[in-house]
């Protein structure tokens, strides 16, 4: 399957190097005060992505736990764990869990398909995060509803910057 190469990854925007970040830190400036770098092609907003995944339905908060480190040193491998409170019976189970990262070149990161035979809705996996962003896990329930949990993640080494 051929795929377009992301402009965000092919031409990384000039970001602060680690050295610059260290220098700023040493100067005692708050990182949060830095202006966000301008992005040529803004990715679709997270709410739009979620609406596409849930086909317009508004997911509820709760019943889902999304464990992801708040501060990620290396975006190339980020451990996540997702649990959904569900009896996992034929009548009431989680159909799938979808992870979306709004600022990744391809925001759809992964989807896990479960069934009543799963016994529990309990998933762990390793992901890539291009940059600091909000990441969301959306679970589709057999009754037709959706639940969501999200987290703001700070990535110090982007998965998009690598020479090799």
């Amino acid at each position, binding site marked *: 399957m051929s795929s377009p190469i992301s402009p965000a*990854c092919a031409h990384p925007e000039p970001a602060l190097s680690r050295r610059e970040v260290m220098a700023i830190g040493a100067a005692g400036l708050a990182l949060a005060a830095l202006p966000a770098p301008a992005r040529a092609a803004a990715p679709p907003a997270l709410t739009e992505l979620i609406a596409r995944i849930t086909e317009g339905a508004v997911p509820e908060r709760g019943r889902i736990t999304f464990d992801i480190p708040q501060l990620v040193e290396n975006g190339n491998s980020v451990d996540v764990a997702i649990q959904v409170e569900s009896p996992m019976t034929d009548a009431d189970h989680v159909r799938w869990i979808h992870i979306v990262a709004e600022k990744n070149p391809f925001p759809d990161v992964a989807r896990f398909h479960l069934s009543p035979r799963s016994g529990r809705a309990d998933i762990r996996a390793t992901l*890539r995060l291009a940059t600091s962003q909000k990441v969301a896990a959306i679970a589709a329930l057999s009754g037709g509803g959706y639940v969501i949990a999200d987290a703001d993640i700070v990535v110090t080494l982007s998965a998009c910057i690598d020479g090799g």
Partner: protein
Amino acid sequence: MASFNARITMPAEAKAGEIVEVRVLVRHPMDRGGQVDAEGRVVPRKILNRLTVTYAGEPVFRYDMHTGVSANPFVSFTTRAVETGELTFEWREDGGATFTRTARLVVT
């Protein structure tokens, strides 16, 4: 890929009805495309895009992977032990190659 290295960790036996955790780690670069290698060539996208798991012939888990999944992808999931049989793991790679591994679960 000449060799496909997958490590599947799960109990060898379980009681009927017990929920077993299955952990799967694969060695794969998950090339997302667009990087430049040492010779200056652009590396095309080549990732494992799907892992399908069947248990005694019945599908029990599927993992759709995109470029946001890390190299050497790890995943863990659970399944209810129902009968003695093979869990079959099939990975599909960009370009159509597939790789299959099995693990046996004895249910007492």
